[in-house]
């Protein structure tokens, strides 16, 4: 009996499965990705946001403080330096799409051996930011660095930008601009290769000069690329951490602090988890504003 009913039930299961597999397959395929993404990305965002309303040393009990952490941020000069540096970072990173476009225009030629040359131009993007940071920290080092001997040959005096409160942040951002420009260059090169040649050729036959062409034919076609490039730059400007950690550790006197690094410091050096979460929440808010702005522009353009 049992022997007879087992295949019967299994065939009814498989019949049931066969009827429902079109609905069940996507669920099964999605489950692992959604689960892992929820556990490590989505839920932690919520946990961080709620933690920002508490005082916590990472071990003991949490104390509810409402918006106390945020109120304290408003009186914290280091927070404002970090915020200002993040905004400066963002602003300067927006030069990367422009520089990347110039580089792409320069490299968009079909001459022999251009492929490996383009690849070499992308190199700074491929290596780790740790390596970029080490290279630049040493490049700018006043005693052993490569910059001062180079300046001396040009008859310019020795400089120590990383030890200067005013210049240090610009030096750190400049180091980041290098790989960022390389990235934008690749985006634009792909955009330029994919452009419709007949539009350009016909404009040329009409006697359009190159700079008119660039402005009225090429750039409008490249707009989606510019959009992506700008967004990528904003995202990485707000995430900036590695270069600060490697090159200056936030110094001198917090002049190169950024929100991500200040949050890290508050967590592991001051053990103020709640305050750190509040800093992270501000960072998240900034990102949300930028994404909303991008989406608004995207929708506005699609509507016309």
């Amino acid at each position, binding site marked *: 009996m049992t022997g007879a009913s087992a295949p019967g039930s299994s065939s009814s299961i498989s019949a049931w499965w*066969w009827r429902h597999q079109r609905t069940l*397959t996507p669920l099964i*395929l*999605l489950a692992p*990705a*959604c689960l*892992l*993404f929820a*556990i*490590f*990305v989505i839920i932690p*965002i919520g*946990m961080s946001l709620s933690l920002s309303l508490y005082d916590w040393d990472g071990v003991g009990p949490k104390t509810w403080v409402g918006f106390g952490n945020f109120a304290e941020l408003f009186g914290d000069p280091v927070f404002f330096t970090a915020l200002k540096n993040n905004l400066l970072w963002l602003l300067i990173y927006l030069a990367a799409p422009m520089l990347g476009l110039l580089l792409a225009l320069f490299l*968009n*030629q*079909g*001459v022999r051996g*251009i*492929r490996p*040359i383009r*690849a*070499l131009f*992308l*190199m*700074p993007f*491929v*290596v*780790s930011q*740790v*390596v970029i940071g*080490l*290279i*630049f920290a*040493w*490049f700018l080092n006043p005693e*052993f660095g*490569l910059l001062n*001997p*180079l300046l001396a040959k040009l008859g310019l005096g020795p400089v120590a930008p990383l030890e200067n409160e005013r210049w240090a942040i610009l030096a750190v951002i400049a180091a980041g601009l290098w790989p960022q420009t390389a*990235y934008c260059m*690749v985006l634009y090169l*792909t*955009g*330029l290769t*994919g452009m419709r040649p007949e539009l350009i050729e016909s404009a040329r036959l009409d006697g359009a000069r*190159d700079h008119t*062409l660039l402005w009225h034919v090429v750039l409008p076609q490249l707009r989606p690329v510019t959009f*992506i490039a700008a967004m990528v730059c904003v995202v990485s400007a707000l*995430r900036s*951490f*590695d270069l600060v*950690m*490697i090159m200056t550790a936030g110094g001198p006197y917090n002049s190169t602090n950024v*929100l*991500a690094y200040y949050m*890290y410091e508050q967590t592991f050096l001051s053990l103020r988890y709640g305050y750190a979460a509040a800093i*992270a929440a501000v*960072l998240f808010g*900034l*990102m949300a504003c930028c994404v909303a702005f991008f989406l608004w522009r995207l929708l506005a353009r699609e509507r016309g």
Partner: protein
Amino acid sequence: MFPTPIERAPRATRFTYRAALYVSLAVWLLPMAGVALTSVRSIDDLNRGNLWGWPSEFRLVENYTAVFADTRMAQFILNSVLITVPAVAGAVALACMAGFALAKFRFRGNLALFVIFIAGNLVPFQILMIPVRNLTIEIGIYDTRWALILFHAAFQTGFCTLFMRNFIKQLPDDMLDAARNDGLSEFQIFRHIVLPLVRPAIAAIAALTFTFVWNDYFWSLVLVQSDDVRPLTAGLQSLRGMWLASWHLISAGSIVAAIPPVLIFFFMQQHFIAGLTSGTPND
């Protein structure tokens, strides 16, 4: 083609263009060339201030041997491999499955899920630091390779899913319907039709994700702390305290750290760039 192809220009212009190419490339890579050169110098050169001149002696073998013999560099490299490879494999596998589901099935919340995957990938990931670190402590994987493998696999799944979904969406529906009429189940379609066709996309996304995970520094700092499991990026920075002003060793270490992603990049250049520019409409 824009700008005007240089082949149409006179000979002198073409010659100038080629010269400009090489000069600009040299300037662009000057910092890297400086590091490469320094990694084969002796400490005497550094002390004497011979930073740009020809090295007084070549110590390629000595310096690179010192990096591996006096430090745990080999262990760091092994750790990076043992973290990066499973993380990439996991993210790509999950993304293929999720990408197929999102691209070829209609169900409620499909678009919402897709948007969540994209948005989750855009967040400044530092906001995840405290909860994720606590989570790894609670489930007992803090300071193990698993902490980094699981986190990277999860986080990269967002971008990989976006990529795979867009690629799979371009596969013609007629083809899948024909397979269905032949009696193939959805899983068989995924396994025998979709996966073989998306191989180029898998290569692109794997090459790119490998670079991202290999180059990660933040999470290596937050989720592990002992040298036994620490990957190369965090290891290199920790060696700086030991090497102080031995910039020839720091340079050699940096070169070692940079080699794997650079190799991946050069061997899989087309795939890598295809992955990098996947958001742009022209591919």
